[in-house]
Protein backbone atom coordinates (compact mmCIF):
# COMPACT_ATOMS: atom_id res chain seq x y z
CA UNK A 1 0.00 0.00 0.00
CA UNK A 2 1.38 3.37 -0.97
CA UNK A 3 1.35 6.47 1.14
CA UNK A 4 -1.23 8.28 -0.98
CA UNK A 5 -3.63 5.33 -0.77
CA UNK A 6 -3.37 5.29 2.96
CA UNK A 7 -3.96 8.99 3.36
CA UNK A 8 -7.00 9.04 1.10
CA UNK A 9 -8.49 6.10 2.96
CA UNK A 10 -7.93 7.85 6.24
CA UNK A 11 -9.45 11.03 4.80
CA UNK A 12 -12.57 9.14 3.81
CA UNK A 13 -13.02 7.84 7.31
CA UNK A 14 -12.45 11.13 9.05
CA UNK A 15 -14.61 13.17 6.69
CA UNK A 16 -17.57 14.54 8.55
CA UNK A 17 -21.09 14.74 7.21
CA UNK A 18 -21.30 18.27 8.50
CA UNK A 19 -21.22 21.15 6.08
CA UNK A 20 -17.63 22.16 5.44
CA UNK A 21 -18.37 25.80 4.68
CA UNK A 22 -21.52 27.88 4.90
CA UNK A 23 -23.47 28.47 1.71
CA UNK A 24 -24.34 32.13 1.89
CA UNK A 25 -25.31 32.22 -1.79
CA UNK A 26 -28.49 30.21 -1.20
CA UNK A 27 -29.70 32.54 1.51
CA UNK A 28 -28.96 35.64 -0.55
CA UNK A 29 -30.80 34.33 -3.58
CA UNK A 30 -33.74 33.22 -1.48
CA UNK A 31 -33.88 36.64 0.16
CA UNK A 32 -33.80 38.46 -3.16
CA UNK A 33 -36.54 36.34 -4.64
CA UNK A 34 -38.68 36.81 -1.54
CA UNK A 35 -38.16 40.57 -1.80
CA UNK A 36 -39.27 40.53 -5.41
CA UNK A 37 -42.42 38.62 -4.47
CA UNK A 38 -43.14 40.93 -1.55
CA UNK A 39 -42.64 44.13 -3.55
CA UNK A 40 -45.44 43.24 -5.93
CA UNK A 41 -47.82 42.24 -3.15
CA UNK A 42 -46.87 45.28 -1.06
CA UNK A 43 -47.49 47.63 -3.97
CA UNK A 44 -50.98 46.27 -4.47
CA UNK A 45 -51.76 46.51 -0.77
CA UNK A 46 -50.29 50.00 -0.67
CA UNK A 47 -52.47 51.22 -3.52
CA UNK A 48 -55.59 49.77 -1.95
CA UNK A 49 -54.77 51.27 1.44
CA UNK A 50 -54.06 54.69 -0.03
CA UNK A 51 -57.46 54.62 -1.72
CA UNK A 52 -59.28 54.21 1.55
CA UNK A 53 -58.79 57.48 3.55
CA UNK A 54 -59.82 59.93 0.77
CA UNK A 55 -62.69 57.61 -0.19
CA UNK A 56 -63.89 57.50 3.43
CA UNK A 57 -63.56 61.26 3.58
CA UNK A 58 -65.71 61.47 0.44
CA UNK A 59 -68.46 59.36 1.93
CA UNK A 60 -68.63 61.67 4.96
CA UNK A 61 -70.00 64.36 2.64
CA UNK A 62 -71.90 62.25 0.14
CA UNK A 63 -74.04 59.32 1.22
CA UNK A 64 -73.30 55.92 -0.27
CA UNK A 65 -76.83 55.67 -1.64
CA UNK A 66 -76.60 59.06 -3.33
CA UNK A 67 -73.29 58.01 -4.89
CA UNK A 68 -74.51 54.65 -6.10
CA UNK A 69 -78.02 55.57 -7.26
CA UNK A 70 -77.70 59.17 -8.42
CA UNK A 71 -77.96 59.75 -12.13
CA UNK A 72 -76.25 63.12 -12.30
CA UNK A 73 -72.49 63.41 -12.24
CA UNK A 74 -71.08 66.94 -11.97
CA UNK A 75 -68.46 66.84 -9.21
CA UNK A 76 -66.20 69.37 -10.89
CA UNK A 77 -68.92 71.93 -11.50
CA UNK A 78 -70.18 74.65 -9.24
CA UNK A 79 -73.44 72.82 -8.74
CA UNK A 80 -72.16 69.45 -7.67
CA UNK A 81 -73.97 66.14 -8.09
CA UNK A 82 -72.35 62.87 -7.12
CA UNK A 83 -74.41 60.18 -8.78
CA UNK A 84 -71.89 57.72 -10.27
CA UNK A 85 -74.38 55.80 -12.42
CA UNK A 86 -73.57 57.68 -15.65
CA UNK A 87 -69.92 56.59 -15.34
CA UNK A 88 -70.89 53.04 -14.43
CA UNK A 89 -73.30 52.85 -17.35
CA UNK A 90 -70.71 54.17 -19.79
CA UNK A 91 -68.12 51.70 -18.50
CA UNK A 92 -70.52 48.79 -18.79
CA UNK A 93 -71.70 49.74 -22.28
CA UNK A 94 -68.24 50.29 -23.72
CA UNK A 95 -66.85 47.17 -22.03
CA UNK A 96 -69.75 45.13 -23.37
CA UNK A 97 -69.17 46.36 -26.91
CA UNK A 98 -65.48 45.54 -26.56
CA UNK A 99 -66.15 42.05 -25.25
CA UNK A 100 -68.73 41.38 -27.93
CA UNK A 101 -65.85 41.77 -30.38
CA UNK A 102 -62.96 40.44 -28.35
CA UNK A 103 -64.33 37.20 -26.91
CA UNK A 104 -65.68 35.62 -30.13
CA UNK A 105 -62.77 36.81 -32.26
CA UNK A 106 -60.19 35.95 -29.61
CA UNK A 107 -61.56 32.46 -28.96
CA UNK A 108 -62.01 31.82 -32.66
CA UNK A 109 -58.45 32.88 -33.41
CA UNK A 110 -57.13 30.73 -30.58
CA UNK A 111 -59.05 27.62 -31.65
CA UNK A 112 -57.91 28.14 -35.23
CA UNK A 113 -54.28 28.56 -34.22
CA UNK A 114 -54.25 25.63 -31.83
CA UNK A 115 -56.46 23.09 -33.61
CA UNK A 116 -56.59 23.91 -37.29
CA UNK A 117 -53.61 25.95 -38.42
CA UNK A 118 -50.64 24.34 -40.11
CA UNK A 119 -47.67 24.47 -37.71
CA UNK A 120 -45.70 26.67 -40.12
CA UNK A 121 -48.60 29.12 -40.38
CA UNK A 122 -49.00 29.21 -36.62
CA UNK A 123 -45.31 29.92 -36.27
CA UNK A 124 -45.67 33.37 -37.75
CA UNK A 125 -49.37 34.05 -37.19
CA UNK A 126 -49.24 33.86 -33.42
CA UNK A 127 -46.33 36.29 -32.95
CA UNK A 128 -47.85 38.75 -35.38
CA UNK A 129 -51.12 38.61 -33.46
CA UNK A 130 -49.20 39.29 -30.27
CA UNK A 131 -47.66 42.38 -31.86
CA UNK A 132 -51.14 43.91 -31.73
CA UNK A 133 -50.89 43.74 -27.95
CA UNK A 134 -47.79 45.89 -28.08
CA UNK A 135 -49.42 48.89 -29.76
CA UNK A 136 -49.75 51.77 -27.27
CA UNK A 137 -53.37 52.36 -26.33
CA UNK A 138 -53.10 56.05 -27.16
CA UNK A 139 -52.59 54.99 -30.77
CA UNK A 140 -55.74 52.89 -30.61
CA UNK A 141 -57.58 55.89 -29.18
CA UNK A 142 -56.51 58.13 -31.98
CA UNK A 143 -57.32 55.40 -34.49
CA UNK A 144 -60.86 55.19 -33.12
CA UNK A 145 -61.34 58.94 -33.28
CA UNK A 146 -59.75 59.56 -36.68
CA UNK A 147 -60.70 56.43 -38.63
CA UNK A 148 -63.42 54.36 -37.02
CA UNK A 149 -65.84 57.14 -36.17
CA UNK A 150 -65.86 58.57 -39.73
CA UNK A 151 -66.18 55.03 -41.07
CA UNK A 152 -69.13 54.35 -38.78
CA UNK A 153 -70.76 57.58 -39.92
CA UNK A 154 -70.70 56.25 -43.48
CA UNK A 155 -71.91 52.79 -42.58
CA UNK A 156 -74.64 53.50 -40.04
CA UNK A 157 -78.19 54.13 -41.26
CA UNK A 158 -78.87 57.81 -41.87
CA UNK A 159 -81.32 58.12 -38.97
CA UNK A 160 -78.57 57.39 -36.45
CA UNK A 161 -76.62 60.44 -35.48
CA UNK A 162 -73.14 59.68 -34.31
CA UNK A 163 -71.21 62.24 -32.29
CA UNK A 164 -67.57 62.95 -33.06
CA UNK A 165 -66.75 61.34 -29.74
CA UNK A 166 -68.85 58.29 -29.00
CA UNK A 167 -68.91 55.08 -27.03
CA UNK A 168 -69.39 52.84 -30.04
CA UNK A 169 -66.09 53.54 -31.80
CA UNK A 170 -64.23 53.41 -28.50
CA UNK A 171 -65.80 50.06 -27.64
CA UNK A 172 -65.10 48.53 -31.04
CA UNK A 173 -61.46 49.56 -31.04
CA UNK A 174 -61.04 48.47 -27.45
CA UNK A 175 -62.35 45.07 -28.51
CA UNK A 176 -59.69 44.84 -31.20
CA UNK A 177 -57.09 45.82 -28.64
CA UNK A 178 -58.09 42.97 -26.31
CA UNK A 179 -58.24 40.27 -29.01
CA UNK A 180 -54.53 39.36 -28.83
CA UNK A 181 -54.62 39.06 -25.05
CA UNK A 182 -57.54 36.66 -25.12
CA UNK A 183 -56.33 34.81 -28.22
CA UNK A 184 -52.78 34.31 -26.99
CA UNK A 185 -53.68 33.12 -23.50
CA UNK A 186 -56.46 30.89 -24.80
CA UNK A 187 -54.14 29.38 -27.38
CA UNK A 188 -51.66 28.58 -24.60
CA UNK A 189 -54.42 26.87 -22.64
CA UNK A 190 -55.62 24.86 -25.65
CA UNK A 191 -52.12 23.80 -26.63
CA UNK A 192 -51.51 22.54 -23.11
CA UNK A 193 -54.31 19.98 -23.46
CA UNK A 194 -52.62 16.59 -23.94
CA UNK A 195 -52.60 15.32 -27.50
CA UNK A 196 -53.81 11.94 -26.21
CA UNK A 197 -57.24 13.44 -25.49
CA UNK A 198 -57.59 14.59 -29.09
CA UNK A 199 -56.50 11.18 -30.34
CA UNK A 200 -59.06 9.53 -28.09
CA UNK A 201 -61.76 11.69 -29.57
CA UNK A 202 -60.67 11.16 -33.18
CA UNK A 203 -60.49 7.40 -32.59
CA UNK A 204 -64.16 7.46 -31.61
CA UNK A 205 -65.05 8.90 -34.98
CA UNK A 206 -65.43 12.56 -34.21
CA UNK A 207 -64.15 15.28 -36.48
CA UNK A 208 -62.03 18.32 -35.73
CA UNK A 209 -64.92 20.56 -34.81
CA UNK A 210 -66.47 18.12 -32.36
CA UNK A 211 -63.08 17.35 -30.85
CA UNK A 212 -62.28 21.04 -30.40
CA UNK A 213 -65.64 22.03 -28.98
CA UNK A 214 -66.42 19.00 -26.85
CA UNK A 215 -63.04 17.82 -25.65
CA UNK A 216 -60.28 20.40 -26.02
CA UNK A 217 -62.18 23.56 -25.05
CA UNK A 218 -63.80 22.02 -21.95
CA UNK A 219 -60.43 20.64 -20.85
CA UNK A 220 -58.86 24.09 -21.24
CA UNK A 221 -61.79 25.95 -19.72
CA UNK A 222 -60.02 27.30 -16.67
CA UNK A 223 -57.32 28.85 -18.84
CA UNK A 224 -59.91 30.23 -21.24
CA UNK A 225 -61.92 31.82 -18.44
CA UNK A 226 -58.73 33.30 -17.02
CA UNK A 227 -57.95 34.76 -20.45
CA UNK A 228 -61.42 36.29 -20.72
CA UNK A 229 -61.26 37.71 -17.20
CA UNK A 230 -57.95 39.34 -17.99
CA UNK A 231 -59.55 40.72 -21.15
CA UNK A 232 -62.47 42.12 -19.15
CA UNK A 233 -60.13 43.66 -16.62
CA UNK A 234 -58.18 45.33 -19.41
CA UNK A 235 -61.42 46.65 -20.91
CA UNK A 236 -62.72 48.02 -17.62
CA UNK A 237 -59.38 49.56 -16.78
CA UNK A 238 -58.60 50.94 -20.23
CA UNK A 239 -58.29 54.73 -20.15
CA UNK A 240 -56.63 56.29 -23.18
CA UNK A 241 -59.03 54.95 -25.80
CA UNK A 242 -62.13 56.10 -23.95
CA UNK A 243 -60.58 59.42 -23.00
CA UNK A 244 -59.76 60.22 -26.61
CA UNK A 245 -62.58 58.57 -28.50
CA UNK A 246 -65.57 58.43 -26.14
CA UNK A 247 -65.54 61.95 -24.75
CA UNK A 248 -66.31 63.53 -21.42
CA UNK A 249 -70.02 64.11 -21.22
CA UNK A 250 -71.31 62.35 -18.13
CA UNK A 251 -74.89 62.02 -19.17
CA UNK A 252 -76.77 59.00 -17.89
CA UNK A 253 -77.43 56.92 -20.99
CA UNK A 254 -76.81 53.52 -22.43
CA UNK A 255 -76.87 54.74 -26.01
CA UNK A 256 -73.34 54.41 -27.35
CA UNK A 257 -73.84 56.81 -30.25
CA UNK A 258 -73.18 59.89 -28.16
CA UNK A 259 -70.40 60.97 -25.82
CA UNK A 260 -69.83 58.74 -22.81
CA UNK A 261 -67.48 59.11 -19.88
CA UNK A 262 -66.24 55.98 -18.18
CA UNK A 263 -64.92 55.74 -14.64
CA UNK A 264 -61.35 55.57 -15.84
CA UNK A 265 -61.76 58.51 -18.20
CA UNK A 266 -63.17 60.61 -15.37
CA UNK A 267 -60.27 59.74 -13.10
CA UNK A 268 -57.75 60.60 -15.81
CA UNK A 269 -59.44 63.88 -16.64
CA UNK A 270 -59.94 64.97 -13.03
CA UNK A 271 -56.49 63.93 -11.94
CA UNK A 272 -54.81 65.78 -14.79
CA UNK A 273 -56.76 68.97 -14.05
CA UNK A 274 -56.08 71.36 -11.19
CA UNK A 275 -58.04 69.83 -8.34
CA UNK A 276 -56.97 71.06 -4.89
CA UNK A 277 -55.77 68.25 -2.63
CA UNK A 278 -58.28 67.46 0.09
CA UNK A 279 -61.22 69.08 -1.70
CA UNK A 280 -64.38 67.12 -2.32
CA UNK A 281 -63.53 66.95 -6.03
CA UNK A 282 -60.17 65.45 -5.14
CA UNK A 283 -61.77 62.87 -2.89
CA UNK A 284 -64.22 62.01 -5.65
CA UNK A 285 -61.38 60.59 -7.69
CA UNK A 286 -60.58 58.15 -4.93
CA UNK A 287 -64.18 57.17 -4.45
CA UNK A 288 -64.49 56.29 -8.12
CA UNK A 289 -61.14 54.52 -8.00
CA UNK A 290 -62.27 52.45 -5.03
CA UNK A 291 -65.47 51.52 -6.83
CA UNK A 292 -63.48 50.49 -9.89
CA UNK A 293 -61.18 48.37 -7.78
CA UNK A 294 -64.10 46.76 -6.00
CA UNK A 295 -65.77 45.90 -9.29
CA UNK A 296 -62.74 44.14 -10.76
CA UNK A 297 -62.06 42.43 -7.45
CA UNK A 298 -65.58 40.98 -7.25
CA UNK A 299 -65.35 39.93 -10.88
CA UNK A 300 -62.13 38.04 -10.22
CA UNK A 301 -63.69 36.29 -7.24
CA UNK A 302 -66.68 35.21 -9.30
CA UNK A 303 -64.51 33.93 -12.11
CA UNK A 304 -62.36 31.91 -9.72
CA UNK A 305 -65.55 30.31 -8.39
CA UNK A 306 -66.78 29.62 -11.90
CA UNK A 307 -63.52 28.02 -12.93
CA UNK A 308 -63.47 25.77 -9.88
CA UNK A 309 -66.98 24.65 -10.60
CA UNK A 310 -66.74 23.92 -14.31
CA UNK A 311 -63.18 23.08 -15.09
CA UNK A 312 -62.22 19.62 -16.25
CA UNK A 313 -58.89 18.67 -14.75
CA UNK A 314 -56.96 16.42 -17.07
CA UNK A 315 -53.95 15.53 -14.94
Amino acid at each position, binding site marked *: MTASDASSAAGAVSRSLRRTRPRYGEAVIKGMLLTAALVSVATTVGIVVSLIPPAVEFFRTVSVSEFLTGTQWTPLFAEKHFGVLPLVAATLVITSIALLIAIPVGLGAAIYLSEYADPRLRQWLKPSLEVLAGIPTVVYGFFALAFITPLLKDILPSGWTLDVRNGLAAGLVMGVMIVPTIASLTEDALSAVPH*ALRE*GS*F*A*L*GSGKRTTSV*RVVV*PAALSGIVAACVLGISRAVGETMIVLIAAGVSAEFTIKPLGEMETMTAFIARAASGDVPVGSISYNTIFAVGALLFLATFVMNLISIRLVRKYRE*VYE
Partner: protein
Amino acid sequence: MTAVPETPSSLKTTATAVQETDMTSPSDAATGGTKTPQVSFREAPALTSPVFEVGGLSVFYGDHEAVRDVNMTIGERQITAMIGPSGCGKSTVLRCFNRMNDLIPTARVAGKIHYHDEDLYGRDVDPIEVRRRIGMVFQKPNPFPKSIYDNIAYGPRVGGFRGNLDDLVEETLTHAALWDEVKDKLKTSALALSGGQQQRLCIARTIAVKPEVILMDEPCSALDPIATAKIEDLMEHLAQEFTIVIVTHNMQQAARVSHRTAFFTADVDDKGVRHGRLVEYDETELIFSNPCDQRTEDYISGRFG
Protein backbone atom coordinates in the same frame (compact mmCIF):
# COMPACT_ATOMS: atom_id res chain seq x y z
CA MET B 1 -81.55 -10.46 -36.54
CA THR B 2 -82.49 -9.50 -40.03
CA ALA B 3 -81.04 -10.96 -43.16
CA VAL B 4 -77.32 -10.91 -43.58
CA PRO B 5 -76.37 -8.18 -46.04
CA GLU B 6 -74.68 -9.45 -49.15
CA THR B 7 -71.94 -6.89 -49.15
CA PRO B 8 -70.42 -4.98 -46.29
CA SER B 9 -72.09 -1.62 -45.84
CA SER B 10 -69.95 0.97 -47.48
CA LEU B 11 -67.62 3.19 -45.50
CA LYS B 12 -68.94 6.08 -47.48
CA THR B 13 -72.37 5.83 -45.97
CA THR B 14 -73.18 6.99 -42.51
CA ALA B 15 -75.09 3.84 -41.65
CA THR B 16 -74.37 2.91 -38.07
CA ALA B 17 -75.39 -0.73 -38.25
CA VAL B 18 -72.52 -3.11 -37.88
CA GLN B 19 -72.68 -5.59 -40.66
CA GLU B 20 -73.32 -9.18 -39.92
CA THR B 21 -71.01 -11.56 -41.67
CA ASP B 22 -70.90 -15.27 -41.66
CA MET B 23 -68.35 -16.21 -39.06
CA THR B 24 -68.88 -19.93 -38.77
CA SER B 25 -66.83 -21.17 -41.66
CA PRO B 26 -63.13 -20.56 -41.48
CA SER B 27 -62.96 -20.26 -45.21
CA ASP B 28 -59.35 -19.31 -45.56
CA ALA B 29 -57.69 -22.55 -44.65
CA ALA B 30 -54.40 -21.91 -42.97
CA THR B 31 -51.82 -24.60 -42.70
CA GLY B 32 -50.14 -26.11 -39.69
CA GLY B 33 -53.13 -26.71 -37.48
CA THR B 34 -52.14 -30.28 -36.82
CA LYS B 35 -49.86 -29.83 -33.85
CA THR B 36 -51.20 -30.43 -30.37
CA PRO B 37 -51.59 -27.00 -28.83
CA GLN B 38 -49.64 -26.37 -25.68
CA VAL B 39 -51.61 -25.42 -22.64
CA SER B 40 -50.28 -21.87 -22.49
CA PHE B 41 -51.53 -20.99 -25.93
CA ARG B 42 -55.00 -20.21 -27.06
CA GLU B 43 -56.68 -22.67 -29.28
CA ALA B 44 -55.58 -21.51 -32.69
CA PRO B 45 -58.28 -21.82 -35.28
CA ALA B 46 -57.49 -21.40 -38.91
CA LEU B 47 -57.60 -17.89 -40.26
CA THR B 48 -61.20 -16.75 -40.30
CA SER B 49 -62.68 -14.67 -43.08
CA PRO B 50 -60.44 -11.69 -43.66
CA VAL B 51 -61.22 -8.27 -42.21
CA PHE B 52 -58.03 -6.60 -43.33
CA GLU B 53 -55.93 -7.57 -46.30
CA VAL B 54 -52.62 -5.78 -46.40
CA GLY B 55 -50.38 -5.96 -49.44
CA GLY B 56 -47.08 -4.20 -50.10
CA LEU B 57 -47.79 -1.64 -47.38
CA SER B 58 -45.14 1.01 -46.84
CA VAL B 59 -45.47 4.01 -44.54
CA PHE B 60 -43.40 7.13 -44.89
CA TYR B 61 -42.83 9.98 -42.46
CA GLY B 62 -41.61 12.68 -44.79
CA ASP B 63 -38.87 10.98 -46.80
CA HIS B 64 -38.25 8.31 -44.22
CA GLU B 65 -39.73 4.94 -45.05
CA ALA B 66 -40.66 3.80 -41.55
CA VAL B 67 -42.23 0.53 -42.59
CA ARG B 68 -41.51 -1.38 -45.77
CA ASP B 69 -43.54 -3.91 -47.71
CA VAL B 70 -45.88 -5.44 -45.18
CA ASN B 71 -48.19 -8.25 -46.30
CA MET B 72 -50.71 -9.78 -43.92
CA THR B 73 -54.32 -10.80 -43.59
CA ILE B 74 -56.24 -10.27 -40.37
CA GLY B 75 -59.09 -12.62 -39.63
CA GLU B 76 -62.47 -11.83 -38.25
CA ARG B 77 -63.13 -12.26 -34.52
CA GLN B 78 -59.59 -13.30 -33.86
CA ILE B 79 -56.96 -11.64 -31.76
CA THR B 80 -53.94 -10.77 -33.84
CA ALA B 81 -50.82 -9.69 -31.97
CA MET B 82 -48.01 -7.61 -33.41
CA ILE B 83 -44.71 -7.97 -31.58
CA GLY B 84 -41.17 -6.82 -32.18
CA PRO B 85 -38.49 -4.51 -30.84
CA SER B 86 -39.04 -0.77 -30.44
CA GLY B 87 -38.97 1.20 -33.67
CA CYS B 88 -39.94 -1.72 -35.87
CA GLY B 89 -43.08 -0.03 -37.10
CA LYS B 90 -45.76 -2.17 -35.50
CA SER B 91 -47.63 0.80 -34.03
CA THR B 92 -47.26 2.60 -37.34
CA VAL B 93 -48.94 -0.30 -39.14
CA LEU B 94 -51.65 -0.48 -36.48
CA ARG B 95 -52.38 3.21 -36.96
CA CYS B 96 -52.90 2.65 -40.67
CA PHE B 97 -55.84 0.36 -39.92
CA ASN B 98 -58.04 3.21 -38.68
CA ARG B 99 -56.26 6.00 -40.51
CA MET B 100 -54.92 7.60 -37.35
CA ASN B 101 -51.76 8.31 -39.34
CA ASP B 102 -53.81 10.88 -41.24
CA LEU B 103 -53.40 13.14 -38.23
CA ILE B 104 -49.65 13.32 -38.75
CA PRO B 105 -49.17 15.84 -41.57
CA THR B 106 -46.01 14.23 -42.97
CA ALA B 107 -47.25 10.64 -42.91
CA ARG B 108 -47.93 8.91 -46.23
CA VAL B 109 -49.14 5.42 -46.94
CA ALA B 110 -48.38 3.35 -50.02
CA GLY B 111 -49.63 -0.11 -50.90
CA LYS B 112 -52.89 -1.83 -50.23
CA ILE B 113 -55.01 -2.03 -47.11
CA HIS B 114 -58.40 -3.47 -47.83
CA TYR B 115 -61.09 -3.60 -45.21
CA HIS B 116 -63.72 -6.11 -46.35
CA ASP B 117 -62.62 -5.67 -49.96
CA GLU B 118 -62.88 -1.89 -49.74
CA ASP B 119 -59.75 0.21 -50.13
CA LEU B 120 -59.29 1.89 -46.75
CA TYR B 121 -57.34 4.69 -48.39
CA GLY B 122 -59.75 5.05 -51.32
CA ARG B 123 -60.51 8.54 -52.45
CA ASP B 124 -64.10 8.65 -51.23
CA VAL B 125 -63.47 6.94 -47.92
CA ASP B 126 -64.32 9.09 -44.93
CA PRO B 127 -61.74 8.61 -42.15
CA ILE B 128 -64.36 9.52 -39.57
CA GLU B 129 -66.58 6.69 -40.78
CA VAL B 130 -63.54 4.39 -40.75
CA ARG B 131 -62.84 5.22 -37.12
CA ARG B 132 -66.42 4.54 -36.13
CA ARG B 133 -66.04 0.98 -37.45
CA ILE B 134 -62.47 0.51 -36.31
CA GLY B 135 -61.91 1.75 -32.78
CA MET B 136 -58.65 2.24 -30.97
CA VAL B 137 -57.32 1.91 -27.43
CA PHE B 138 -54.07 3.69 -26.64
CA GLN B 139 -50.94 2.96 -24.67
CA LYS B 140 -51.65 5.36 -21.85
CA PRO B 141 -55.24 5.43 -20.62
CA ASN B 142 -56.70 8.65 -22.00
CA PRO B 143 -60.20 9.08 -20.57
CA PHE B 144 -61.70 12.49 -21.20
CA PRO B 145 -61.73 14.77 -18.16
CA LYS B 146 -65.45 14.19 -17.89
CA SER B 147 -67.66 11.90 -15.83
CA ILE B 148 -67.56 8.14 -16.34
CA TYR B 149 -71.01 8.36 -17.89
CA ASP B 150 -70.01 11.12 -20.31
CA ASN B 151 -66.91 9.22 -21.37
CA ILE B 152 -69.05 6.30 -22.51
CA ALA B 153 -71.75 8.56 -23.96
CA TYR B 154 -69.30 10.70 -25.92
CA GLY B 155 -68.92 8.47 -28.97
CA PRO B 156 -72.63 7.61 -29.31
CA ARG B 157 -73.58 11.28 -28.85
CA VAL B 158 -71.14 12.42 -31.49
CA GLY B 159 -72.44 9.72 -33.81
CA GLY B 160 -76.01 10.94 -33.41
CA PHE B 161 -77.17 8.01 -31.28
CA ARG B 162 -80.94 7.98 -30.82
CA GLY B 163 -82.08 5.72 -28.09
CA ASN B 164 -81.78 5.34 -24.39
CA LEU B 165 -78.31 6.51 -23.48
CA ASP B 166 -78.63 5.28 -19.89
CA ASP B 167 -79.26 1.77 -21.12
CA LEU B 168 -76.41 1.97 -23.58
CA VAL B 169 -73.99 3.12 -20.87
CA GLU B 170 -75.04 0.32 -18.54
CA GLU B 171 -74.89 -2.28 -21.28
CA THR B 172 -71.47 -1.09 -22.45
CA LEU B 173 -69.95 -0.96 -18.98
CA THR B 174 -71.35 -4.40 -18.20
CA HIS B 175 -69.85 -5.66 -21.42
CA ALA B 176 -66.48 -4.23 -20.42
CA ALA B 177 -66.75 -5.84 -16.96
CA LEU B 178 -66.65 -2.47 -15.28
CA TRP B 179 -70.28 -1.91 -14.33
CA ASP B 180 -70.13 -3.36 -10.83
CA GLU B 181 -67.12 -1.24 -9.98
CA VAL B 182 -68.50 2.09 -11.21
CA LYS B 183 -72.30 1.84 -11.16
CA ASP B 184 -72.57 4.00 -8.02
CA LYS B 185 -70.28 6.74 -9.28
CA LEU B 186 -71.23 7.26 -12.90
CA LYS B 187 -71.30 11.02 -12.42
CA THR B 188 -67.84 11.26 -10.88
CA SER B 189 -64.77 12.09 -12.91
CA ALA B 190 -63.22 9.27 -14.90
CA LEU B 191 -59.83 10.49 -13.70
CA ALA B 192 -60.67 9.35 -10.19
CA LEU B 193 -60.47 5.73 -11.38
CA SER B 194 -57.32 3.63 -11.10
CA GLY B 195 -55.11 3.23 -14.16
CA GLY B 196 -56.47 -0.23 -14.93
CA GLN B 197 -60.06 0.93 -14.54
CA GLN B 198 -59.34 3.93 -16.74
CA GLN B 199 -58.02 1.65 -19.45
CA ARG B 200 -61.07 -0.60 -19.22
CA LEU B 201 -63.19 2.55 -19.41
CA CYS B 202 -61.34 3.47 -22.60
CA ILE B 203 -62.11 0.01 -23.99
CA ALA B 204 -65.74 0.44 -22.96
CA ARG B 205 -65.81 3.88 -24.58
CA THR B 206 -64.54 2.27 -27.77
CA ILE B 207 -67.13 -0.52 -27.84
CA ALA B 208 -69.92 1.97 -27.05
CA VAL B 209 -69.88 3.10 -30.67
CA LYS B 210 -70.26 -0.57 -31.70
CA PRO B 211 -67.23 -0.95 -33.94
CA GLU B 212 -66.29 -4.13 -35.72
CA VAL B 213 -62.60 -3.94 -34.97
CA ILE B 214 -60.70 -2.80 -31.88
CA LEU B 215 -57.08 -1.80 -32.33
CA MET B 216 -55.00 -1.80 -29.16
CA ASP B 217 -51.67 -0.04 -29.05
CA GLU B 218 -49.78 -1.55 -26.08
CA PRO B 219 -52.88 -1.25 -23.91
CA CYS B 220 -51.26 -2.72 -20.81
CA SER B 221 -47.82 -1.17 -20.87
CA ALA B 222 -48.76 1.43 -18.25
CA LEU B 223 -50.53 -1.07 -15.98
CA ASP B 224 -49.58 -3.47 -13.20
CA PRO B 225 -49.90 -7.26 -13.67
CA ILE B 226 -53.30 -7.51 -11.96
CA ALA B 227 -54.82 -4.78 -14.12
CA THR B 228 -53.15 -6.38 -17.13
CA ALA B 229 -54.73 -9.75 -16.33
CA LYS B 230 -58.16 -8.13 -16.15
CA ILE B 231 -57.69 -6.53 -19.54
CA GLU B 232 -56.50 -9.80 -21.03
CA ASP B 233 -59.62 -11.54 -19.69
CA LEU B 234 -61.70 -8.78 -21.17
CA MET B 235 -60.00 -9.14 -24.55
CA GLU B 236 -60.69 -12.84 -24.60
CA HIS B 237 -64.34 -12.13 -23.88
CA LEU B 238 -64.53 -9.37 -26.47
CA ALA B 239 -62.96 -11.50 -29.17
CA GLN B 240 -66.22 -13.43 -29.43
CA GLU B 241 -67.74 -10.33 -30.90
CA PHE B 242 -64.96 -8.08 -32.14
CA THR B 243 -61.87 -8.43 -34.26
CA ILE B 244 -58.91 -7.35 -32.14
CA VAL B 245 -55.45 -6.31 -33.26
CA ILE B 246 -53.00 -5.68 -30.44
CA VAL B 247 -49.50 -4.28 -30.44
CA THR B 248 -47.56 -5.44 -27.42
CA HIS B 249 -44.05 -5.47 -26.06
CA ASN B 250 -44.99 -8.24 -23.74
CA MET B 251 -44.35 -11.53 -25.49
CA GLN B 252 -46.10 -13.56 -22.81
CA GLN B 253 -49.13 -11.41 -23.42
CA ALA B 254 -49.03 -12.12 -27.14
CA ALA B 255 -48.66 -15.83 -26.39
CA ARG B 256 -51.49 -15.80 -23.87
CA VAL B 257 -54.15 -13.87 -25.71
CA SER B 258 -53.59 -13.99 -29.43
CA HIS B 259 -54.61 -16.44 -32.11
CA ARG B 260 -52.10 -15.20 -34.60
CA THR B 261 -48.88 -13.28 -34.18
CA ALA B 262 -46.93 -11.04 -36.49
CA PHE B 263 -43.27 -10.49 -35.70
CA PHE B 264 -41.77 -7.21 -36.90
CA THR B 265 -38.19 -6.09 -36.80
CA ALA B 266 -36.17 -3.20 -38.12
CA ASP B 267 -33.58 -3.43 -40.87
CA VAL B 268 -30.81 -0.89 -40.79
CA ASP B 269 -29.77 0.17 -44.29
CA ASP B 270 -26.26 1.28 -45.29
CA LYS B 271 -27.06 4.89 -44.32
CA GLY B 272 -28.00 3.79 -40.81
CA VAL B 273 -31.71 4.43 -41.32
CA ARG B 274 -34.13 1.97 -39.75
CA HIS B 275 -36.91 0.44 -41.80
CA GLY B 276 -39.50 -1.70 -40.07
CA ARG B 277 -40.57 -4.88 -41.75
CA LEU B 278 -42.75 -7.87 -41.11
CA VAL B 279 -40.58 -10.94 -40.63
CA GLU B 280 -43.06 -13.65 -39.91
CA TYR B 281 -46.78 -13.97 -39.45
CA ASP B 282 -48.46 -17.16 -38.41
CA GLU B 283 -50.46 -18.86 -35.73
CA THR B 284 -49.25 -17.72 -32.34
CA GLU B 285 -48.39 -21.22 -31.28
CA LEU B 286 -46.16 -21.78 -34.28
CA ILE B 287 -44.42 -18.43 -33.88
CA PHE B 288 -43.56 -19.25 -30.30
CA SER B 289 -42.80 -22.94 -30.64
CA ASN B 290 -41.37 -23.35 -34.09
CA PRO B 291 -40.61 -20.09 -35.86
CA CYS B 292 -39.35 -20.24 -39.42
CA ASP B 293 -37.04 -17.28 -39.20
CA GLN B 294 -33.91 -17.11 -37.07
CA ARG B 295 -34.63 -13.49 -36.11
CA THR B 296 -38.01 -14.48 -34.69
CA GLU B 297 -36.44 -17.24 -32.68
CA ASP B 298 -33.73 -14.93 -31.37
CA TYR B 299 -36.30 -12.39 -30.30
CA ILE B 300 -38.75 -14.70 -28.59
CA SER B 301 -35.98 -16.62 -26.85
CA GLY B 302 -34.62 -13.36 -25.49
CA ARG B 303 -31.32 -13.36 -27.37
CA PHE B 304 -32.14 -10.12 -29.08
CA GLY B 305 -34.27 -7.05 -28.58
